[in-house]
């Protein structure tokens, strides 16, 4: 029982860490000299990385960028809140009940990061051939999978001991 709980906790925690890494690191799209999104752009100039702003809102992705930013932030927030809710439910849930509340939070986090990653995949860099998707983008999709698994676990698991 304890090993199972530890495993579930670890999956949730890993999900949070990957979400944070995907959101904070500006590496959704990478070329040889540029590492960009979703907050700013790193440009390799004269042998050093320079931190620059993203192009103007109307020429780069328009409002879709704000949607990606907002939903990836929300995914992080809901996942972290879900962790605390899970810990709380561990001690207050009556025997035999499901961890529904934690499951709901993880579900919302999963949906949010899915929205963020989907919008980014569909609306950005569609015609650019000179680059590839960076580590943050990949982590975003992996954390989608992890939060989804976590959601399922929470909705299926029943509390065994009081």
């Amino acid at each position: 029982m304890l090993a199972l709980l530890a495993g579930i906790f670890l999956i949730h925690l890993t999900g949070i860490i990957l979400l944070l890494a995907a959101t904070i690191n500006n590496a959704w799209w990478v070329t040889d000299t540029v590492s960009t999104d979703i907050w700013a752009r790193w440009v390799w100039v004269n042998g050093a990385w320079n931190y620059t702003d993203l192009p103007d809102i109307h020429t780069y992705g328009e409002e879709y960028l704000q949607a990606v930013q907002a939903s990836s932030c929300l995914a992080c927030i809901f996942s972290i809140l879900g962790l605390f809710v899970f810990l709380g439910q561990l001690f207050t849930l009556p025997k035999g009940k499901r961890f529904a509340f934690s499951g709901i939070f993880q579900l919302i986090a999963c949906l949010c990061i899915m929205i963020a990653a989907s919008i980014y995949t569909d609306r950005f860099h569609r015609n650019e051939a000179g680059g590839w998707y960076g580590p943050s983008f990949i982590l975003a999709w992996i954390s989608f999978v992890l939060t989804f698994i976590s959601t399922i676990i929470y909705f299926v698991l029943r509390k065994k001991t009081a």
Partner: protein
Amino acid sequence: MITLLAFTSLALLATVHQSDSIVIYTGWERHALVGSDIRLSCSFFSWHWTSEDVTFSWSYRPDGAKDSIAIFHYTGGAPYVDNKGPFRDRLEFVGNPPRRDGSILLKNLDFGDNGTFTCDAKNPPDIVGRASSVRLLVFEKVPVQAGVITGAIIGVVLGLLVLVVAIYYLMRFLVARRVFTLSLSKKKGKGKEGSQPKQASVFDTFTH
């Protein structure tokens, strides 16, 4: 206690009288659209009463230029607006000097009006003070700050979350209270055996 209070207030007044200078307030930066009007406000703080000889002067320094040009002066109870310079026929005095307000109105803005506007006010005998500057930025379209939309979305969703949780707990509390009062009234009317099972079943159906 009272003597301490009197002493501290006297000391405060003394120190304040030392820094007896006029303090001028304008904005820091103003944004406006091409073709619109903008009101540049200027007011001051002074320990002396507003004198009849109070003066306001505005000067303008275009972006990139080194010299500034005077564009407005109020003295002896009369305003003198720019009639030769870059703002001729576009400047209007909308201030109220007895109320310490020396604001001006710039009409029909253009990109060439980008620059720094400096307001200098004097309230005799309080004439020592620093002039204050406000920077004017003229835009074709008012830019939406990038973070505002993102922040708004996050704020709204979190607000909804808090609302939903609050409503959930409120409903639970209300139903529990209603059931409690119902069971009380039943106890008074019929007796213990009749009411106990009913109370338990209502609870069960709700929390399931």
